[in-house]
């Protein structure tokens, strides 16, 4: 069973609640200078020009003062726990800037995505988190960008695959 805070459990059972779940994304890739930090809740105004909102959290050991999780126009689902299916999640970004598509098409290897679910009132306390997921695909159209985040597919083995040679399997070649 996943451990959750008492506040979160009470909020889920309450008839009316003011607690808000926010999903934090921590995206890292070798071509990025520093990780991309995203949040789904506009907890506080970061700056006026351009207008930006952010959530400040210490998750992934970031400094909440200098590196806030920036609010994006996004809808997110947390990874599923369905049997026999790879853990899968999606993040649908509003396509508000051409640079989103430019960045997403600029690399060919997998970016690593870490996801955490927090309450907006206690952004440092992690209710659930998923580490080391890979950014598998990005469907881009004029209105929105749908990112699919999952584990690396087991069918995508590197070629040539391992051969049953004496070096690798000494017990077979006795």
């Amino acid at each position: 069973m996943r451990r959750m805070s008492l506040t979160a459990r009470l909020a889920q059972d309450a008839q009316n609640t003011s607690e808000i779940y926010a999903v934090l994304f921590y995206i890292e890739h070798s071509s990025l200078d520093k990780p991309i930090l995203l949040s789904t809740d506009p907890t506080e105004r970061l700056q006026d020009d351009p207008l930006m909102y952010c959530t400040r959290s210490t998750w992934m050991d970031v400094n909440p003062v200098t590196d806030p999780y920036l609010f994006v126009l996004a809808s997110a689902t947390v990874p599923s726990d369905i049997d026999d299916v790879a853990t899968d999640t999606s993040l649908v970004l509003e396509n508000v800037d051409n640079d989103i598509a430019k960045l997403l098409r600029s690399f060919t290897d997998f970016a690593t995505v870490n996801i955490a679910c927090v309450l907006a009132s206690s952004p440092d306390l992690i209710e659930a988190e998923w580490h080391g997921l890979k950014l598998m695909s990005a469907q881009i159209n004029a209105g929105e960008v749908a990112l699919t985040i999952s584990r690396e597919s087991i069918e995508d083995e590197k070629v040539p695959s391992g051969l049953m040679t004496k070096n690798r399997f000494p017990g077979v070649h006795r």
Partner: protein
Amino acid sequence: MTVATWPIELPKPERESWQSSPQESRLKRNNEAGPPSYRSRFSSVADQVSLSILVDRNGKAIFDRFHRSTTSRGSKPFYMPDPTTDGWKLYAADGRPLLTAAGRQILLSARWLCMFGDTMPAEAIVGVEFRKSFSVWVMP
């Protein structure tokens, strides 16, 4: 790029057309029967304020220029003094005005970061003056 500022030449908004309401930030849980239940969806909630100003021909030109060019027909944000707070006198709880050491009345000050609202400003002629009705989103 700097954020535009509401022209100080324009008058305060009229009292009778003033209306302010917060943005819907709740998610309603669909109950089959019984009273509804809600939860919040996001933290920062904007306010929609409808207001109107009564201006002469010069004021109309100032407003039109501000809307058309300064805010690019309402697509850019701007700062506006909060008409319900800015310039109001500060009183103590017993109704005495609060004064500075020099005996001056202390005035409240507040500034909104606004965007023009969902409908474009409407104009009507009242006698020899113009009534500009518009709405703004007050950013949280």
